[in-house]
Structure formats: structure tokens, C-alpha cells
């Protein structure tokens, strides 16, 4: 037997998980993040608000709104990557959490309309239309922004926690879990379609006037929403990175690759899955809350199964288990969508299917795999 080696020469100790605080990103990645933050907080606001529309450096309102929308999708794809890419649990119901966050914010925005609605009532138009005289109990306090913000986090969080607890404890896995999440979002969509649910039926919420007292369609408000969305994306990217780089992140990947071994190593996979599942749902809810004031509408179609499947496609196209990949995937697929739905609207779904098949066949690690592929 060789004499026992000193720890400093253990190869694994040098690379990953070493030191008191492992570095979050490489220097180059930090530089990219810095540039992104600069674009978000300086270049776009200046280009949109200060540069006159005729100039080549002008950033149009359309671009700001589109980019803000896409960044919301990117946050959702990032949340999907944590649960699917890293933990191996495919959710086909993530659109539900996104929509619930959106509805929570929408309730506040509806109440901010005040008496400026069509019927000049303190109630939203759809309630007047239904001949309701007062807000139902679950609309209580939603006139306060802080309360709506709390709902944005708690409603998707608690729903995901309770659903996840029973699903994971019953050891529901793989395709069965995917199908149940799909059914869950479908059931909620049917519920929200009903007028007497109290969320505006199939029209949902729209015609928002202001947020925190600021006119919601004013360029300044839009740019601020855009900036907050961008900073949230960067923040969640860093949070996701910190999680997957931690020992907990390695346990999640281990659950994906060999769950029984994880169990026989003394970890209870139920709680690890529940943690990342709930976190993922909360992140989706926040993305939904940022989305609604920017696009100006939320309705039950956000809960349709097709939307949730699209989220999975963003993640797969960008590259599962890479964090940055799904962000790129969400952007690429959404841009392709807004192009094709204008140019060839009836062919978009075929295109989407084709993209998915091509990526699965030729880019199993997605777009991010193109440059990360060399590593392994």
C-alpha cells in the first residue's frame, strides 16, 4: 500500500466544491453579466427614452415590450431547467404557476383601475356585468400591492408544495408525473374559464390603467418594468447557479441519475424534490407577475396544456442542465414564434414540432451544447 496522500493532491479537491465559498461564475461569465446589466439599465432606457425615434440608436417601445416579455419566458425556462434539467422531473404544468402569479398581480392591477372602467364602478367591469355587488372574499386586500406581491409568491408556492408533497411521497415519477401536472393545469384552466370563479372568465383581466400610481402604458413605466424583469432574470440565474453548484445541487442531479442510490445513501429524495419543485413554481409565479403588467392581459389560455409544453420545448432547445441554455432557448423559440406567427401563422405548430425533433436528434444538449459539448 502506498502511504496515504495529503489532501492537497486529491484532484477533485482542486476543481469543484473546493474552498469555503466556491466561485459562482468564471471571470468571463461575470463580464457577460456585467454587459447584460449595462444594456438593461443604461443602453435600452437611454435608447428608448432619450434618443429621438428617427435615430438608428432609438429602441422602439415595441422592442422594449417584446424583450421584457421574452425575459419573463426566460425566467420560466430557467425554473423549468432546475426541476427538469437538473432533477430529471418533467413538469408539463409549469404554465399554471406562471399564470397564477400573473393572476395575483392582475387582481391588484384590476383594483388599481378604480372608477376608470367602462361602468365607472369600483368593481371590475366583468363583476358589474355579472351583476355582483361586492368583491368576493378572496379579493380582500388585493388593492394593496404588498399583499398582491405576497400572493404572487404564496399561491404558486403553496399549491406546488401540497401537490408535490403527495406526488413525491407516493413516488409518482416520470411520465406519470408529467401527465398529472398536465391534467392539473388543464383543470385550473377549466376552472378559470368559468365566470362565477370570479376571475373574469375567458376574458381574464385586461385594460389596466396604472401600477403603483404610475400610468401603466407610459414609456417610463414600461422601461422600469423591463429593467426589473432583466434584473430578476440575472438574479434568478445567479440563484440557480448557486443551488446547482452546492452539495444540494449535486444531490438533485444524483436523484436524476440514480434515485435509489440517493435513498440508500441516507438522503430522503422526497424533500429534495419538494424543495426544488416549490422553488421552481415560485420563480414561475414571479415571472408571471412581471409579465402581466407588460403585456396588459392575463386570461385562462395561459394555463392551456400547449403553453406548458412550449416551456419544456424552450428548455430542451436551449439545453437541459445548463441554466443559461434555457434562457437562450426561450428567446430563440419566442422570436421564431413571433416571426412565424406573422409570416406563416398556420404553420407555426408544425415548425415548433420540427424544431423539437431536430434538436432532439442532432443537438441532444441543446444550443448550449454547441459550445459546452467539448467539455465532456
Amino acid at each position, binding site marked *: 500500500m502506498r502511504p496515504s496522500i495529503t*489532501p492537497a493532491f*486529491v*484532484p*477533485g*479537491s482542486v476543481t469543484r466544491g473546493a474552498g469555503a465559498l466556491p466561485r459562482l461564475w468564471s471571470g468571463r461569465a461575470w463580464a457577460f453579466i456585467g454587459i447584460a446589466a449595462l444594456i438593461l439599465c443604461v443602453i435600452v432606457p437611454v435608447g428608448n427614452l432619450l434618443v429621438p425615434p428617427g435615430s438608428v440608436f432609438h429602441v422602439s417601445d415595441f422592442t422594449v415590450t417584446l424583450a421584457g416579455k421574452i425575459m419573463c419566458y426566460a425566467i420560466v425556462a430557467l425554473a423549468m431547467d432546475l426541476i427538469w434539467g437538473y432533477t430529471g422531473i418533467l413538469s408539463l404544468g409549469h404554465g399554471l404557476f406562471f399564470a397564477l402569479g400573473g393572476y395575483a398581480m392582475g387582481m391588484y392591477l384590476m383594483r388599481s383601475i378604480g372608477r376608470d372602467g367602462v361602468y365607472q364602478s369600483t368593481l371590475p367591469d366583468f363583476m358589474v356585468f355579472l351583476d355582483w355587488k361586492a368583491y368576493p372574499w378572496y379579493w380582500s386586500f388585493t388593492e394593496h400591492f404588498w399583499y398582491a406581491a405576497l400572493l404572487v409568491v404564496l399561491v404558486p408556492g403553496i399549491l406546488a408544495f401540497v401537490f408535490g408533497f403527495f406526488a413525491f411521497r407516493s413516488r409518482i415519477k416520470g411520465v406519470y408525473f408529467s401527465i398529472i401536472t398536465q391534467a392539473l393545469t388543464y383543470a385550473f384552466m377549466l376552472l378559470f374559464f368559468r365566470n362565477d370563479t370570479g376571475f373574469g372568465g375567458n376574458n381574464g383581466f385586461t385594460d389596466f390603467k396604472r401600477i403603483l400610481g404610475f400610468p401603466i402604458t407610459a414609456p417610463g413605466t414600461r422601461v422600469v418594468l423591463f429593467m426589473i424583469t432583466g434584473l430578476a432574470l440575472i438574479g434568478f440565474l445567479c440563484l440557480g447557479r448557486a443551488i446547482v453548484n452546492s452539495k444540494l445541487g*449535486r444531490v438533485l442531479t444524483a436523484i436524476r*441519475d440514480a434515485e435509489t*442510490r440517493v435513498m440508500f*445513501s*441516507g438522503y430522503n429524495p422526497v424533500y429534495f424534490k419538494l424543495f426544488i419543485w416549490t422553488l421552481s413554481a415560485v420563480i414561475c409565479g414571479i415571472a408571471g407577475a412581471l409579465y402581466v403588467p407588460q403585456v396588459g392581459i392575463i386570461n385562462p389560455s395561459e394555463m392551456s396544456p400547449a403553453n406548458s409544453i412550449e416551456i419544456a420545448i424552450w428548455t430542451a432547445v436551449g439545453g437541459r442542465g445548463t441554466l443559461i441554455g434555457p434562457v437562450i432557448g426561450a428567446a430563440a423559440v419566442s422570436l421564431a414564434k413571433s416571426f412565424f406567427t406573422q409570416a406563416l401563422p398556420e404553420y407555426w405548430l408544425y415548425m415548433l414540432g420540427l424544431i423539437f425533433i431536430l434538436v432532439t436528434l442532432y443537438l441532444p444538449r441543446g444550443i448550449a451544447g454547441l459550445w459546452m459539448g467539448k467539455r465532456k
Partner: protein
Amino acid sequence: MAGGDARARSRSISDGHVVNRAVVDTSHGAILYLESVSVSFDGFKALNDLTLTVDAGELRCVIGPNGAGKTTMMDVITGKTRPDAGTAFFGQSIDLTRLSEPAIADIGIGRKFQKPTVFTDHTVFENLELARKADKRVWPTLRARLDSAARDRIATILDTIKLTSHADRLAGMLSHGQKQWLEIGMLLMQEPQLLLLDEPVAGMTDDETMRSAELFQSLAGDYTLVVVEHDMDFVARIADRVTVLHEGHVLAEGSMQQVQQNEQVIEVFLGR
């Protein structure tokens, strides 16, 4: 650290199963008691009134034809399968039939599967890090950092399983025999008292098999090992005592020589 231990212990108490998780009561010499255990799947009796006692520090081999119940026995001990009847005790006081798989792993029973199961997308080093005995609840795991004691321990185990030079390779890239060794190393990282090894030398070269025999013999004494194996030469080389299972029941028990001369055993193994 001390606070963490206290919390872990109070959790065990509140679970109502384990009073002191650090100490398995082996005052009567035995570490594992299976008594009249029966398990049936759709009428098929995988275990039929199985009674088996394993002494602390012994290296026990379990042999038997296919379907004799060897793997089911391990499933019962590790909480994967609940017995229809009978009891399974770890030491004098821990009732294994009432604990979950992670809890059983936590109190000191490590299990190696027939097919090597390692975390293929993690490096060898990370595999050992994850297996290491620690507070394995969510929050402590999120905040866990590798200290130098942990790194020393990993270095020692890497040396024991001869994978020091492969520490940074992905476990999925290892040969079959190396994966078997890595899995054994992961068990050792858990600091278990009882190791259950299901066909640990299957698919190993002669040289690797030989080194495994040396390893297991060096572990016996500090650990208790229960090895299920088909390779009779291997069993003959390492076993203190051999238990022969047949149709979910103990057919014979004793030294390899005694067992080999047992009439019933000869009948079951050769007389078909």
C-alpha cells in the same frame, strides 16, 4: 457542529424509533436478527419463515440458487420491502421494519446493488462526497462545505478503492469493476456498521476479484459484512460462515466445508 448533532438526535427521538442513533446495541454479540420473516409476491413466497442471525464483525456469505430469496432478504433489511410476517432487528433495539430506506442508511446499514449504481454524471470524488456521513436533510445539504477532515476521509477511501488517479473522472466513464469498487467506497464513506453486498465481484477480472477478497477480509472486524455471491471460489476464499438459502428458507449454515458436505445442500445444488 454540536448543535447539529443534538438536532439530529432529537429528530430521531421524535420519530419514535431510535433512541441513540450513534450506538447500535450489539451487547449480545449479534448485529442483525431476522426472525421468522416471510414475504410473498402474488402468492409466490420469496421468503418463507427465514431466521438468520449475524454477529458483529463477521463476514457472512449467503449463497443459494436463483430465486432463493437472497435479494428479497436484503430488501427487507434495507426497508425496500416490508415483511408480511416476522421481525428484523438491527442490534438489540432498532426495528428495521418501521424505518424508511434513508433512515436505515442513516443508522449504519449500507447496501451495494447487484448492478453497480453510482452517480454517472458526477466525478468519482463527488460520488464519495455525496455518500459521506453527514446531516443529510435539505437545508444542511444546501449549506454544506467540504472541510479538510472530509477531504482526508475521501482521500483515504480513494486510496482504499484504488481510484485516486481517477478522482476527477466522471463515474459513468469507469469500467464495470471500477464502478463496483466506487460503490463499495461510497458505502464506506457512509461509515456503516453493516455492509450488504449483492454480488460484489460480478463482472470483475480475476485480479480485481482477488483484490476485492483482500479488501473484504481487511474490512471484516471493523465492519460486519453480508455478501451474496454466486462465485463459489470467491466465497470459499473469504467466508467465515456461509448461509445457504433455498426457497426463502435457511437450508444450512456453517463453515464452507460443513456446508459443502451437507446432504441437503448437495441435493439442492447438484441433484437436479
